[in-house]
């Protein structure tokens, strides 16, 4: 059943470099959710990385060049949807700041940033989607990935959509505390990152949920990697995988 907001709107899916290389299934899950909502979705072949590694390492020029590439790739779409809070925030919050006031690219970037959404907030706030219950309902604990939470205000939406899937949310303690991924931080400060993810996965396990769910592949790989190392039995899923019934 196509959603009314989808009528003749063209969505560009930005799969992010981490989804592209580490978790392709998240891209297909996002695609499925958007197509089932009735959108015409395109995956531009020219898409690459949002530039956070460069931006957060102080390479502002590199990040600006990547923002420009993004602008070129996605400017023709009605909406751009990203299955990641941090890449979403990079575009929405940080991209416009990379161009000086008065730079002709700035208003174009601002307009595109305004049409770019993180997947879950797009499905909730723009589409107002209603999802069918999950074929295999899981009890889940949700980790609020930092950028999505603090830069995009994503907090209630994933929980509401998990509720639509008739999956129980078992809140972990400190769901809003950083998992220690932080992009290059996790390899530059491995001892600190390791301690942070140890605490995070301990809290997730203590929730008693069957699955640990979050909205960013970086955080997901970090937490999943720590759980694998410790040999712990808890599924680690991206929210798109859960919502699209792609949990196996």
């Amino acid at each position: 059943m196509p959603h009314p907001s989808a009528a003749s709107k063209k969505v560009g899916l930005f799969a992010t470099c981490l989804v592209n290389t580490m978790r392709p299934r998240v891209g297909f899950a996002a695609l499925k959710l958007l197509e089932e909502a009735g959108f015409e979705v395109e995956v531009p072949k020219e898409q690459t990385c949002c530039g956070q590694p460069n931006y957060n390492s102080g390479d502002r020029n590199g990040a600006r060049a990547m923002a420009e590439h993004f602008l070129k790739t996605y400017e023709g779409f009605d909406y751009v949807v990203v299955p990641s809070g941090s890449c979403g925030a990079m575009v929405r919050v940080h991209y416009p700041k990379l161009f000086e006031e008065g730079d002709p690219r700035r208003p174009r970037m601002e307009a595109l940033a305004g049409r770019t959404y993180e997947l879950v907030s797009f499905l909730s706030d723009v589409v107002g989607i209603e999802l069918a219950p999950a074929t295999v309902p899981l009890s889940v604990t949700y980790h609020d990935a930092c950028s999505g939470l603090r830069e995009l205000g994503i907090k209630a939406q994933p929980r509401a959509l998990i509720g639509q899937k008739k999956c129980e949310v078992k809140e972990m303690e400190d769901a809003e505390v950083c998992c220690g991924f932080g992009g290059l931080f996790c390899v530059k400060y491995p001892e600190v990152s390791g301690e942070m993810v140890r605490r995070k996965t301990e809290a997730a396990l203590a929730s008693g949920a069957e699955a640990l769910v979050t909205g960013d592949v970086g955080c997901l790989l970090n937490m999943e990697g720590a759980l694998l190392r410790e040999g712990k039995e808890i599924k680690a899923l991206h929210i798109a995988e859960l919502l699209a019934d792609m949990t196996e």
Partner: protein
Amino acid sequence: MHVTTEKFHGRAKKAIANKNLQGGLFIIGKIFTAMRDHAMAQMPEFEALRDQARDIKRHTLENLDTYLQQFEERVIENGGRVHWARDGEEANRIIAQLCKEVDAQTVIKSKSMVTEELELNPALEAEGLAVTETDLGEYIIQLRGEKPFHIVAPAWHLTAGEVADTFYEAHKAHGRTERVEDKVKLVEEARIVLRERFKKADVGITGANFLIAETGSIALVTNEGNADLCATLPRKHIAVTGIEKIIPTLDDLALFWRVLPRSATGQDTANYLSLYSGPRREGDADGPESFDIVLVDNGRSDMLGTAVEDMLRCIRCGACLNACPVFTSVGGQTYGSVYSGPMGSVLTPALTSVSQAAMLPNASTFCGKCEEVCPVRIPLPSMMRHWREEEFSKHYSPAAQRWGLGLWAYAARTPWAYRLATTWGRKVLALMGGKERVAHALPFIGKGWSEKRDLNVGEGATFLEQYERRKRRGGAKGERV
């Protein structure tokens, strides 16, 4: 200000392995933050107060010269003196000179992060003065020869047992022969020893949480009452603080008085808020004979008009330390700067240099929690990013990292190169993951990852390859190939 930020990793490892220290950090991360949140919940107008606090500080910084001048005029009218110190060396020289003026032998101090920054104690000791810290936490770390663990709670990393050992050794000279571990008794012991120092001291040195321009007063916010003894018992009171501590009026102080204790410890109010406005006047029952204020620049005025000017709003509440998942993993001494946590990671490079302190602004995941709790709304993550940009543009960051980022930036605006790199990257990962599709040991930059984690390498080709294949086959919606 000396920093040893380059030893961050080694100290972080030790701090993470130290159970006692982790116990202290647990309380900071869980209890302090819960107390702050509770205090906020009691005060629905707190968000508006934060805006006001930010605006007052911003206005004051824009008119810093005017307010500092007004402050000096009022202090002189009140019978005190103001001394201007460009850097740490000058500040220490002025303070030593002020002590000599009254032939001082002994100095008592209340807690002051600025004097930690100046490394005042060794400078005064070199002049033959006996200096005693009288804040309990500062006293403990002074006896142990340590730097503060936290800007508000300097000895928080220690257990009662560790303090007992320290006191037992140090207080033998005071005729105390028993090692006590009971916390109340430990405080009692410190109180007895310190009381004698208070009575005998020639000079009392305090910091100042705020300088009030309209009255020429300094405001001290404390819990132990020791600062008031430092300010009133000795013949001379010297207050040492940074120029950015100035606020225009007593009304402004009333606002900060509501914001500071709640942000720091979740207290509605600290135990003492004291205002000092000059030496003993005729007819006063007590107070010092002379009152001197040393206003320290030490790099602060260089921050004005720069990308890190907002850092001068900081009121040293420590909320960002308590909220920071990095700080609550490793503690303050790991940073190798007296200012630690997010505020220290922004301030330290400003007061020293990026080349000396780049380790600190990089020690953040940019989770944003610090900015969320800062009572004066300092954009701490953006300012850490600013220092990273300085580091990168001045070529201080490691060459391999710069090359890597350069290549990545090239690939990211050259789609065919990006697709080639990611396609081959996936093939290599698949090899490393083997049958179980989990990599246990990664090479190069991945070493840091596999120190603590495995990597689920997943299956199949990249998303873009799979998607293209699906399109060519005219696959159904959502179908994976």
